[in-house]
């Protein structure tokens, strides 16, 4: 079952440097069908959907390690088995001295057209990841998926791919 949320709403969560939730707003809790107690202190992957390719998460962490922002289309898994698509804006949180103290994600409701395009790409990447030796967790599968991702982007960066979908589908 697919769940959506309001155009005017933003799903907000924060994690520490290890990826453990330190904050989740009420839109997050409602959409993920979680309580605050079930969320804070838990690892971020409690909402990870099996349709999400590992290559996209690799890109996410590579980008955050460079202290840069990332926009990504992500499908998340709610505790009740529903799923919901978001356009996530993930950024490092800095303290006054410029040190990264955690990560922050603001998620907006995506356009259907963008979701369809992202879902088609991710299905291909997941298939590539599962074909490798060791199944979906193997390094070979991730390498194949990573290579395929860049082939499919055709010279664009993932960032440009996301913005092509976002600017084309209305803001």
């Amino acid at each position: 079952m697919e769940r959506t949320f309001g155009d005017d709403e933003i799903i907000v969560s924060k994690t520490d440097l290890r990826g453990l939730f330190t904050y989740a707003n009420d839109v997050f809790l409602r959409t993920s069908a979680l309580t605050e107690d079930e969320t804070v202190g838990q690892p971020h992957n409690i909402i990870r959907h099996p349709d999400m390719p590992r290559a996209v998460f690799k890109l996410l962490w590579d980008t955050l390690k460079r202290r840069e922002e990332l926009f990504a289309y992500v499908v998340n898994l709610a505790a009740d088995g529903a799923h919901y698509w978001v356009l996530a804006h993930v950024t490092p949180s800095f303290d006054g001295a410029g040190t990264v103290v955690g990560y922050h994600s603001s998620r907006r409701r995506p356009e259907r057209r963008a979701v369809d395009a992202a879902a088609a790409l991710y299905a291909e990447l997941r298939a590539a990841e599962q074909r490798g030796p060791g199944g979906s967790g193997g390094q070979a599968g991730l390498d194949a998926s990573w290579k395929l991702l860049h082939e499919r982007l055709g010279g664009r960066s993932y960032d440009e791919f996301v913005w092509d979908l976002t600017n084309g589908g209305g803001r």
Partner: protein
Amino acid sequence: MIRRRAETQQPTEDTELLRTLAGVCRRAAAGDLEARLPAIGDSPAAIEARSAVNALLDVTDAFVRESGAALSAAAEGRFHRRFLTRGMLGSFRHAASTIGAANDAMQASAVRVAESDRARLALADQLESAVLTVSEQVATAATEMGASANGLSDFAREAVAGAERGLTTVGSLRTASDQIRNAVDLINQVASQTRLLALNATIEAARAGEAGRGFSVVAGEVKVLANETSESSDEIIGQVATVQSAAADAIEVLESVTESIREMSRLVTGIAAAVDGSHDSGNAGLSQLAEVLRGEVSRFVTTVRAS
């Protein structure tokens, strides 16, 4: 937990709650947007109050992250990265739209700058190509002009030499005329003497009477011959004078022609120096000037392309 406490404890608990709220707001006001209000109670009012405060912090946090990143992206030329207005309401949305409009303006100006860069580079290419063509043509023309000037110089030198040989020839003609005149003068003297001798012979023949009659005829013939010789000499003198006058005219003409050719030769030498350059004055020739022009333009064009 708070709710379970006795009624009499309420003021202390409210104070505690207000302190927590003030602490979170102070942190946020000081720029620490990681601050969020923890649970302050289970009553619907407490849950709503916490949700409202955190929603304010969430939207402020998102706005600050977005605006900084959107402007950085625009400054780096990544104009596709927009400020997403979705999820932003009221003044937040208005400010996000304003940043978006500024982003558009920056993009438009970046496009204009890029266009003007392209135009400038195209102009540099055209200038370089034009100067290259001109300098090649000038170099070719200079080579041809240099060859022509050298040919003209040689020709002028030969013409002057020829004219000088002509002057010598005409000069020797004058000398020959003078010698002829001397020879004719000598002949005239001989004729004059002969006439005198013929006169004396006529007188002597008359004195000899009949015996001298034949001799008188001979003396008359000798006198006629002397007179004819004198007449011929006068004619020769006249012709020699004509030859001498013609020679003088020829000398004048030849000298004038020679001077003209020398002047022409000087002009041609000047042209050759302008074309080939002059070692004495250190002036650069046309070919060198064309090369210098090309070098200067190449340097200029390189600067234009780099800027």
